[in-house]
């Protein structure tokens, strides 16, 4: 049928050609430039720039804050997706639409707002700071904005999968004597595992590269609250282009490894649970 399409429908060559041209102009050419710049450093210079103590601290911070926020998002996002799919409650449509708000809101606005909420005297800081919880200019603040940024990705990945679950299976499980918790743990959870992994991955990958919101809230102190993208910009502002490119290449490699791992995990879980 698809082959019929290629014989019948017009524009295959034109649309594919244009797509490839646009993509190579947008992706391939700039990337080549990045690697060219990074490779203009000698091997020693590259490792010194890319794996300095400050850079290692930044990668580590980027990785664990992204991981923590993705874990939190899987729990909260999973809960919200479940509630939106399974239960009826007032204002459900409104809350359903608001899930996409973090995706539509510019990241700079998100950073600005969470900064003002979490500082001492802000709407949240007023209650949290006396308890010793410093949200603004801290690592906690980074995790909080990353949770905000990644939230819609998890919910929107899980929602269609939860909707497509057959209720009969749950009834069958109950008939066979499983209680509700067992049904969830042994029947429901395995069938949504691939979606959970995808949602986690999307939120994690998105957090790795996030810049706009974090720069407002983290305070950007080297070794403490400086994430890798901020370090790239700081190096640029010192006109250290080669060093910036070296760190950018490591960051890019982290994104690719994440994508690859996720793809393998998805395949593995589709084979074992699907």
């Amino acid at each position, binding site marked *: 049928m698809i082959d019929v399409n290629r014989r019948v429908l017009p524009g295959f060559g034109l649309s594919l050609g244009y797509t490839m041209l646009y993509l190579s102009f947008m992706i391939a050419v700039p990337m080549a430039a990045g690697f060219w710049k990074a490779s203009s450093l000698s091997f020693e210079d590259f490792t010194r720039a890319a794996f300095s103590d400050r850079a290692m601290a930044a990668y580590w911070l980027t990785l664990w804050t992204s991981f923590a926020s993705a874990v939190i998002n899987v729990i909260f996002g999973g809960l919200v997706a479940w509630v939106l799919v399974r239960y009826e409650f007032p204002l459900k449509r409104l809350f359903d639409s608001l899930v996409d708000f973090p995706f539509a809101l*510019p990241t700079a606005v998100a950073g600005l707002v969470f900064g003002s909420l979490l500082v001492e005297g802000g709407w949240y800081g007023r209650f949290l700071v006396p308890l010793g919880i410093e949200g603004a200019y801290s690592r906690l603040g980074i995790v909080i904005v990353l949770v905000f940024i990644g939230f819609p990705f998890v919910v929107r990945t899980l929602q269609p999968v939860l909707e497509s679950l057959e209720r009969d299976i749950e009834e069958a499980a109950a008939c066979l004597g499983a209680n509700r918790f067992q049904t969830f743990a042994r029947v429901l959870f395995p069938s949504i595992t691939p979606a959970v992994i995808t949602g986690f991955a999307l939120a994690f990958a998105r957090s790795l590269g996030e810049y706009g919101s974090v720069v407002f809230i983290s305070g950007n102190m080297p070794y403490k609250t400086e994430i890798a993208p901020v370090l790239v910009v700081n190096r640029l502002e010192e006109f250290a282009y080669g060093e910036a490119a070296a760190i950018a290449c490591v*960051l890019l490699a982290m994104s690719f490894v994440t994508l690859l791992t996720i793809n393998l995990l998805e395949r593995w879980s589709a084979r074992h649970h699907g």
Partner: protein
Amino acid sequence: MADLTTSPHPIPRRAHEDPAWVRWLLIGTALAVMTFLVVIPLVNVFVEAFADGLAAYWQNLVGDPDTLHSIFLTLMVAPTAVILNTIFGLAAAWAIARFKFPGRAALTALIDLPFTVSPVVVGLFLLLLFGLQGVFGPWLREHDIKIVFAFPGLVLATCFVTFPVIARELIPLMEALGSDEEVAAVSLGAKPLQLFRLITIPSIKWGLLYGIILCNARAMGEFGAVFVVSGHIAGKTDTMPLRIEKLFQEYNLPGSFAVASVLAMLALVTLLVKTTLEWRTRRDLEERKRLATQGGEA
């Protein structure tokens, strides 16, 4: 083993329903999460922006020539990027949703790339390509063409970060619609342009419109990539999100929140349009299915 005859429930609830207390506990927690994560921040933007009254708010937006210019610049950059990405989105969706070819899956994955690559890295790569010390730097300077730290650089950076949006909206929609009508139109002698104008566009119009609006929201709000290539020349290359950052650095919080409130409003309008259009798309799809089954019966 549950014994149905001695079940404590006089009327057993359906086996896939949770007890009421579980239900309300989960709903309550979910709504609390949404409230703290989304609703309160949203309210906070407007409260902070209007804290000194309407007149001060207006003055913050219009009274500052640099802020005014940033609004103007965003209104120039975002639509340019949206137009380029709309053409790309249509071409990519047509190629991917209508034809099978080797490398189709790889191409789809490639389109998602900007979602995972850090915008800062994108900006940096553009800088290394078109900046003064970049690959094309000397050539560009000879011919007196400015890309980085100028309008074209802002458009390029915005385009990269937002190009998947429209394509991702259209590909699943066109796959769901199928190509029967288009094949029928061509076999009835429709020219490519007629096919496009009379069959394809009308059937994807709501999805396309939503893609364009979402792409526009992302384009107007793009920060990281634009931050790197703009050079932050106030009154020249500062877009609205960059202006927010600059005012924030200058401790001008009311000014910063005034600009932020405009962008938050844009996000709200985007959500409103999304909700309306999704409802329409679903209705159109159901209508098609109904007509198709009727046609099949007749």
